[in-house]
């Protein structure tokens, strides 16, 4: 019984009873379960718990150590804050999906073996897609389908990989795997999809803006961070991750810079932030793993905060297009402030949360001698500054007045944003609180002279660049447009060419069929001529011809035998 109170199952049970409650109780459940779940989670001592033996495999559902607990804590906090933010939502589907999704993600980080990891992995895919479908528009249905396809593909790869891995090693334990065999390579690819590696990233920018307002906030917290956790657990120190991560931090910059839809901008910057974590995992030193974990922790908060503030704007104005927004600071001051806190955090302004976690990763890469990577991360930091820190608040709340005078965000949204913003500031001011939770014990001080100086320099120069570009009119003007990402290949180009290909296949099929039928007809004719009643093989042979056969065969036998 107590096993069923393990946090992942607690969430699932809550999701099951959720549809039978009244709307007010459902909203309360969304707040209560994360708090209760967090308490239970922290009560578990370090070690393997809730081990169930299923068809000869020992499935470990609660592998508690510092790494999984850290992610469990931040997931619980994210579930609580998004629950508060979504207080106004009366849609049962979204509420059930949120609970199940959070439960599956928490289950994923506590999974001690690959099979239960796979179960939760698919669980997050299936649960989260309802947050997209809940928008109930044809576009969101299509997007949800694409999202589900990619997520299930990731799950299938994980399954295939774990089967091969099990065949190779005879173990299903989810420990350090490393890129050593085809099986582990498949698992790596599966993690890579969920972690939105470059070229595997399209689902992220496609799906997050398409979800419901509150759904976007929920989505931004779990799937990708679970993948970072899985990478940190299984592939820490895999060198290729450093380069993948560096690339990840860089290439969304340009896409984000020209993008008009602010939710997509945030999705790209989320992708870029994931890059920092992946670099940290790739370096694999204690410092860098700490950095990745801390950065995941902080990024859940500030990314959520940014999505929340843009979501609040959308809630009041109905659009997230930068070209249609501007000058909202007059009527939405709290939202504006929270957005600024989020923006400051993401760009690692000292005294905000991003600073204390990003410094870890930057230092880790510097210590490691990876100066190219270190430089790439610096460039990416500048990029984040320009496309998120400055762009999102500036274009939404300042810039030219759009004439819109929306009301301030509802009280529960404000409350959720203020809470998140305070967490960002608290972590920024008292980094020790976060550091005490990290997987490895740290003796690290982010507020050294050079850290602060470098960061402020970056900040000021980025600001300068922005101002100069703006003055010279070189900054890309926000127009209502669709910017091309690599997913244009499978969303536009291939479908455009599909009819021709289909026609070709149809023609080929018809041609082959005709040819085969021709041959078949000829063959059938020959067979029939030989075997129909009265034909040579099927008529009653005369005595003479029977004897002839006997004699021929006898001769053959005698010759064969006597030779």
């Amino acid at each position: 019984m107590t096993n069923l109170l393990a946090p992942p199952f607690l969430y699932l049970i809550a999701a099951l009873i959720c549809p039978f409650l009244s709307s007010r109780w459902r909203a309360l459940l969304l707040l209560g379960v994360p708090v209760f779940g967090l308490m239970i989670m922290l009560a578990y001592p370090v070690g393997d718990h809730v081990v169930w033996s299923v068809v000869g495999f020992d499935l470990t559902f609660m592998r508690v150590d510092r790494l999984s607990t850290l992610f469990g804590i931040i997931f619980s906090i994210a579930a609580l804050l998004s629950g508060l933010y979504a207080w106004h939502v009366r849609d049962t589907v979204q509420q059930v999906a949120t609970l199940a999704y959070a439960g599956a993600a928490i289950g994923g980080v506590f999974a001690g073996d690959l099979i239960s990891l796979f179960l939760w992995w698919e669980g997050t895919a299936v649960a989260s897609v309802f947050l997209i479908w809940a928008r109930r528009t044809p576009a969101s249905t299509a997007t949800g389908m694409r999202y589900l396809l990619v997520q299930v593909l990731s799950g299938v790869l994980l399954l295939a990989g774990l089967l091969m891995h099990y065949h190779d090693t005879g173990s299903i334990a989810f420990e350090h795997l490393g890129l050593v065999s085809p099986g582990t390579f498949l698992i790596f690819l599966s993690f890579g999809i969920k972690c939105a590696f470059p070229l595997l990233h399209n689902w992220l920018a496609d799906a997050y803006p398409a979800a419901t307002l509150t759904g976007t906030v929920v989505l931004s917290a779990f799937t990708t961070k679970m993948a970072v956790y899985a990478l940190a657990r299984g592939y820490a120190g895999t060198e290729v991750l450093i380069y993948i991560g560096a690339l990840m931090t860089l290439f969304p910059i340009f896409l984000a810079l020209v993008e008009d839809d602010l939710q997509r901008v945030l999705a790209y910057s989320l992708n870029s932030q994931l890059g920092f974590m992946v670099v940290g995992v790739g370096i694999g030193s204690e410092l860098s793993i700490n950095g990745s974990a801390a950065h995941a922790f902080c990024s859940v908060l500030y990314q959520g905060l940014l999505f929340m503030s843009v979501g609040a704007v959308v809630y009041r104005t109905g659009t997230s297009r930068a070209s249609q927004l501007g000058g909202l600071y007059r009527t939405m001051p709290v939202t504006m402030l929270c957005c600024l806190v989020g923006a400051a955090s993401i760009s690692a302004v000292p005294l905000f949360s991003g600073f204390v976690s990003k410094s870890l990763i930057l230092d880790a890469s510097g210590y490691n001698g990876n100066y190219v990577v270190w430089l790439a991360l610096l460039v990416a930091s500048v990029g984040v500054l320009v496309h998120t820190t400055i762009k999102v608040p500036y274009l939404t709340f300042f810039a030219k007045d759009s004439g819109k005078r929306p009301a301030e965000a509802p009280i529960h949204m404000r409350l959720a944003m203020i809470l998140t913003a305070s967490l960002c500031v608290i972590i920024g001011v008292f980094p020790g609180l976060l550091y005490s939770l990290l997987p490895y014990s740290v003796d690290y001080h982010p507020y050294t002279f050079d850290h602060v100086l470098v960061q402020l320099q970056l900040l000021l120069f980025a600001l300068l660049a922005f101002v100069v570009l703006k003055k010279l009119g070189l900054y890309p003007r926000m127009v209502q447009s669709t910017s091309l990402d690599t997913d244009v290949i499978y969303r536009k180009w291939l479908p455009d060419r599909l009819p021709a290909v289909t026609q070709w296949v149809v023609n080929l099929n018809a041609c082959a069929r005709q040819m085969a039928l021709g041959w078949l007809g000829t063959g059938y004719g020959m067979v029939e001529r030989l075997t129909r009643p009265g034909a040579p093989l099927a008529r009653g042979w005369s005595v003479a011809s029977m004897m002839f056969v006997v004699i021929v065969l006898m001769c053959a036998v005698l010759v064969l035998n006597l030779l």
Partner: protein
Amino acid sequence: MIDQFPALQIMVPLVAAPICVMIRNPRWSWVCAMVASTLAFLISIILLQQVMANGVIRYAVGGWAAPSGIEYYIDAMNAAVLVLVSGISAVVLVYAYRSVAKSVPAEKHYLFYTAWLMCVCGLLGIVITGDAFNVFVFLEISSLSMYTLISFGQDRRALTASFRYLVLGSVGASFILIGIGFLYAATGTLNMTDLAARIPDSESQRAVLVAFSFLTMGVLIKSAVFPLHAWLPNAYTFAPVAVTAFLAGTATKVSLYVLLRFFFSVFGKDYSFGQHLLNGVLLPAAVAGFVLMSLVAIFQNDLRRMLAYSSVAQVGYIVAGFSLATQSGLTAGIVHVVNHGMVKASLFMAVGCILYRVGHVHTPSLDNLMKRMPFTCVAFIISGMGLIGVPLTVGFVSKFTLIEASLEKGWWAIAALVLLSSLMAIVYVGRVIEIMVFRRSRETGPESSGMCEAPLSMLVPLYVLVGVSLYFGINGSATLEVAGRAASFLLGGLQ
């Protein structure tokens, strides 16, 4: 008493035959034949039990010891064939009473049953004897009575069919006789055990080789192996259907038994398969047989003819199994001898039921027969599935064993061709079933829609045979065990 059973096995039908002639009354001569056949069946079962329990039975006829006198030699192999022959004879005789009453003039009935008993006697004799020349004698007895039985057919074409069979059968028999003569010349003995011992040491190996060739050819003609099968389709088509059912179940099977006995027990496996004859002639002939004859069967419009060609194809399976010359291949062949005997006999019995009521067996005109003769049709369908080799039928047991055996030997092509011809069997059996069950009747007159099932005395034996074959299909290990024992006897040589 029980020691004399081997002799009684032959004597009972042999003595009953002249009694039949003396009775002359149709009904009582049938009773006489029935009693004799049943007795023979019981004796053969007891013999089989004894063999399975105590091993080989050797019986010196007239008390003359083996090498000079005639010896009856019974092991698992021929005990099983004895049961098959006498069992099918008994079952089909029950069925024959009504069937023959309709197709053969009453004043000839006693002759019919006499010929039947002689035929049974001859077939049992071929199987039971351990003496090469005795095989020829019994072969002639059975063949002559078979020609007679076939000529009882209603259709005048039965006479030409019978005559053709007579010519070819005589050629086959004389080949066998020549072969036996050469063997005697080469070794100076006719007893099979003795032959087996002396052949390797014989000074005139060339004579042995000639004997081997002639014997093989003769037996192949009698067992209707393609392309020496041409006597069979007409004979099966035009003979009285009860005779066809009996012959299809027994006659070719007994010839195949002779083939086995000579190949494996007398000449020995190494000798027989050391020759080019078997690898070069027998296997290709068997394979061509089951492929081509299945094809031919697809196109036949006369149900009896279709089944006749299918019989030639099945003989091909059996011979292919023998040609593998391995334990499992032989087991497959022997199992198929028994299984196909049961299946084909029951199919022809079902055809006889149709013939009895409908008056013809022209396949395309049998539409909607399921409505009128449901029991017959169901029996036909079940047996037809056995012919195809659907799981849980006997056909599956033997085809599966055959495929397994050829894969074991690495002859993938053979296995593939067996499957291919099974597909053809689906076509030719399925076509009939489709017409019987699913095709709507063209004329919807009142007389064609009513039930007119065959009489019980025909249906009961039909269902007995169907039931037995279903039992052996589900409990495949029963027949496989006997056949496996027989195969190891054969590969081990005579003891």
